[in-house]
């Protein structure tokens, strides 16, 4: 946990069976997510779905963020990673930020 002016940052690395890695960085302010990045060596098609999803998560709480992930990624094609990986890794990073 790393807190400055009420904003705290959490990071979580999830090693996915099969070898891919998902690295989440999240900033939280009063329970709301103000920044999130899902870095990693995974494959999502179309790629833009991940960036659109990251943008839409801004200002949302954890439960809302998970719904957004579900909305964007359940219709995307993914290789080496699942919707569950994104949701659980975000939750872990979020917990570390609080």
């Amino acid at each position: 946990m790393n807190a400055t002016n009420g904003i705290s940052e959490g990071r979580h690395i999830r090693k996915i069976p099969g070898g891919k890695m998902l690295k989440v960085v999240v900033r939280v302010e009063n329970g709301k997510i103000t920044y999130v990045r899902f870095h990693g060596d995974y494959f999502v098609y179309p790629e833009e779905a991940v960036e659109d999803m990251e943008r839409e998560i801004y200002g949302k709480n954890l439960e809302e963020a998970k719904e957004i992930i579900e909305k964007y990624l359940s219709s995307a094609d993914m290789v080496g990673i699942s919707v569950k990986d994104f949701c659980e890794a975000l939750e872990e990073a979020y917990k570390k930020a609080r």
Partner: protein
Amino acid sequence: MLNSSKSLRVVFDKEHNAYENMGIDEALLYLSPQPTLRLYFWNPPAVSIGYFQSMREEVDVEKARKMGVDLVRRITGGGAVYHKYEITYSFVAPKEMFPGSILSSYRKICYPLVLTLRKLGLNAEIGGVNDVVVNGRKISGSAQTRKKGRILQHGTLLIDVDVDEMFQLLLVPSEKLKDKIVRDVKKRVTSLKHQGVEVDREELAKIMAESFSEFFEMEIEESRLTNEEMELAEKLRVDKYERDEWNFRR
């Protein structure tokens, strides 16, 4: 003719820098009128990172600059790759050529690499999603993207590998565990040289092209990049791949 669907356009390319290489691959994705294979090399050496990765989290940027290593973000997902002792392929084709799952298209496009390695006497097979392994050790990795009804898959085949040199540049999640990680990678990765195969890289390019041609049952049609492709590649180099806005965007 460039528009014959039964032929495989093959561009035996030379060395380029990272920004040119990524510009050419993207230009082919948008412009090449038929299934196309490009075989190429990197000079100076470079690290490419996957579309979703963070440059600063994957690479020691200052060290790379000191070592004269280019840094570039790919339009394809996947991991960070140190391009030095390798041959690289890019394969562009209409999506209809691969009606199955994305995973099966990865495997089909990787298969000519397996054939190439078997012709060189090695015990090669597909490993994981997007790798080719020899005796269980990774020798090749590939990454694919899809845009406007077309597929671009590009990937490496390691001619040699220096894992210690690679980890002077690539960062690991834990400095404390670095020695162990480097040891593990040394066990998991191999190259033609480590497998006792010494082959001229132009000869290797020829064997790869023949393997693609055989696997997809298409005649090789040697070709150069068109003026239109070179112009778009140049524009992509200047406006995208050389820019921090692209390379450091995540």
